């Protein structure tokens, strides 16, 4: 899919909560032997943080880099599976907090871990058609894993916001095209009213994550007549440390190409925030003219692939807000007991 008029990213921002818990600490509590875990450590929200506060932080940083008046935002979409309210949009709170209301389109998107990139596509289309001047898409989550479940090691908190608008001197990365691949594949789900999700073990691998990502990535490259060698960087959804590395290798991308955006080993799986945060981290260091492939993955299942070409103004914009790896290093370790309190597993 290509926009009718050329569209690009004019601003981006990410936010990672300060707290970390090590995978080894989770393993200690559950009596799991060994030292091999899906990730090293993950980001955990503070007591006063949730999906909306993370989205607002990321959105503010995106606005700083976009150097636009928030009133110019014609749309604010929040993609998440961990909304604080089951009924009441997160988008309205975010839009209000950043000063984008009242003349703004707002909705929350849900498609497991690819809800954020669905919002990307909507904003790209709205900006390209001229219906809005700028559209903001936020991918954010404070995901929960059932205590003792494998997902507890990885389910983490974080998010990133991107502002899209027509191509101009203010564009820091141009959208070349996007491609979606969707099938009915039940690999991970959370029923209405349930607090923790269920998953189908190894079924989440080959027939789910790997299939969708590979089909979306190859579909996009075919449509744009590009090869893996044409890309300088790649970002794939990061449910753990292993999957994105494996899928990169399978598709023909070197470890070096995914390294700048590979955050999961040190912050965990931020679900809808995952691939957008990886893109933000990659933009923090990419040079003008470089091409970035990003492919999200949402259980259920589907993938959205994007090709971006970095533009000249990236260098002057990236230091207008905190860089992602700087936020990775800003951390405070907590033990499982404090983690249980922060994640409302125990309450006074």
């Amino acid at each position, binding site marked *: 899919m290509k926009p009718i008029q050329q569209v690009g990213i004019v601003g981006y921002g990410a936010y990672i909560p300060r707290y970390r818990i090590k995978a080894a600490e989770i393993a200690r509590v559950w009596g799991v032997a060994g030292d*091999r875990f899906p990730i090293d450590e993950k980001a955990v929200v503070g007591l006063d943080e949730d999906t909306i506060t993370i989205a607002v932080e990321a959105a503010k940083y995106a606005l700083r880099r976009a150097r636009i008046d928030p009133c110019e935002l014609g749309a604010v979409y929040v993609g998440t599976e961990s909304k604080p309210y089951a009924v009441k949009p997160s988008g309205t709170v975010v839009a209000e907090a950043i000063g984008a209301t009242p003349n703004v389109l707002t909705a929350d998107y849900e498609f497991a871990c690819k809800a954020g990139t669905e919002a990307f596509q909507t904003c790209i289309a709205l900006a390209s058609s001229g219906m809005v001047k700028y559209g903001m898409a936020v991918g954010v989550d404070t995901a929960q894993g059932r205590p003792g479940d494998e997902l507890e090691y990885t389910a983490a908190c974080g998010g990133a916001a991107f502002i899209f608008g027509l191509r101009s001197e203010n564009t820091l990365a141009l959208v070349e095209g996007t491609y979606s691949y969707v099938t009915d594949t039940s690999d991970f789900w959370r029923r209405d009213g349930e607090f923790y999700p269920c998953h189908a*073990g*190894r*079924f989440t691998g*080959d*027939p789910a994550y790997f299939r969708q990502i590979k089909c979306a990535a190859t579909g996009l490259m075919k449509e744009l007549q590009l090869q893996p060698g044409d890309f300088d960087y790649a970002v794939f959804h990061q449910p753990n440390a292993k999957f994105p590395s494996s899928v990169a290798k399978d598709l023909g991308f070197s470890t070096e190409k995914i390294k700048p955006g590979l955050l999961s080993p040190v912050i965990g799986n931020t679900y809808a925030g995952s691939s957008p945060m990886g893109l933000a981290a990659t933009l923090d260091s990419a040079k003008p003219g470089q091409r970035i492939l990003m492919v999200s993955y949402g259980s259920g299942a589907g993938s959205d692939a994007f090709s971006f070409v970095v533009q000249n103004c990236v260098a002057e914009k990236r230091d207008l807000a905190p860089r992602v790896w700087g936020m990775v290093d800003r951390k405070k370790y907590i033990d499982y007991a404090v983690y249980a309190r922060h994640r409302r597993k125990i309450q006074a």
Partner: protein
Amino acid sequence: MRKVAIVGVSCTKVGEHWETSLRDLFTQAGLKAMDDANTAKIDALYVGNMCADKAQEQGHLGALMADAIGLPGTPAVKVEAACASGGAAIHQGFTAVASGLYDTVMVGGVEKMTDLQTEEVSAALMMAENREYTGFTGITFVGLNALVERLYMETHQVKHEEIATFAVNDHKNAATNPYAQYPFPVSLETVMNSPLVADPLHLLECTGIGDGAAALVLCPAERAREFTDTPIQISASTIATSKLAMYERDDLLTFQATRKAAESAYKLAGIGPWDVDVLEVHDAFTIVGVLSMEALGYSERGKGARLAAEGQTAAGGRIPTNTLGGLKARGHPVGATGVYQVAELTWQLRGGAGKNQVSGAEVGMAQNVGGVDSTAVVHILRRTN
């Protein structure tokens, strides 16, 4: 009794067949076996399977699979003997042809374990033990075999590495088997450093979870040339059981069922263990491979692990064992495993095992086990020129 020959064999690749149903897996193997035997006529069908009742909530596999391969109305039943279901199905097919009741019989084995989560697989496999006194404690089959491995090492003062070499041998052989689930070599170091599943058993000492189907076509030996130029005769098909529950046994380190089935098989075939050119043993866990070798008569008690450690079980060794990967690396689609073993031996004796061919192999033996040797099925095959 009539002599019985194998005139058609086939199998699917063992693996995670997410997009193929239990029925389709069986159909793929069954139709290919009929092609291999150049026949569309099957008088009876025996289907080996253990877990479909739980994994697919599907019973009545005889009628289901007969219909699936285009033969509704054919006499067909499921045969279940835990992990020995495949071998037991062959035994049933063998007796049916040998007795003169049926002429062309298909024996299939099929299992689709990936429809279950890992903990459900463990629970399903525990149906092979005594539920009332063992299963209810929560122990798994990995746990039971870990107890046996620990006892073996302590009793016979055997190094763990010697036992673990069984897995290394399997993986080396599977590397060139296109039907293998894990077609790559692993080092002893990798096996010993793999995560502990149940102390002292490491992950790479245990079979994985896999799906697969295999099928044979049997007929009276005197008619075999109607179907193929390379019939393989079943010289012996024996089955034996021992105490189902391990806690009731006097000696946990002797596989009594395998010993009984093997003694009968050697007698029927008129051979001894060292007359076998190519061997398939049921090494669901490395320790099971060791105890199987001992019970089959390849070593005295406590010395079985040396066979692998000294290279005797390797390709080109004194008794080439699990030449296409065995349970560990070809894979263990539970109720189909016994049929895979015999299909692989048939390829070896036909001279069609490709890169894994044991030169000049004339006699092959397969040992298929249910539970911790609660049931054992032994087949001895011979090339007939």
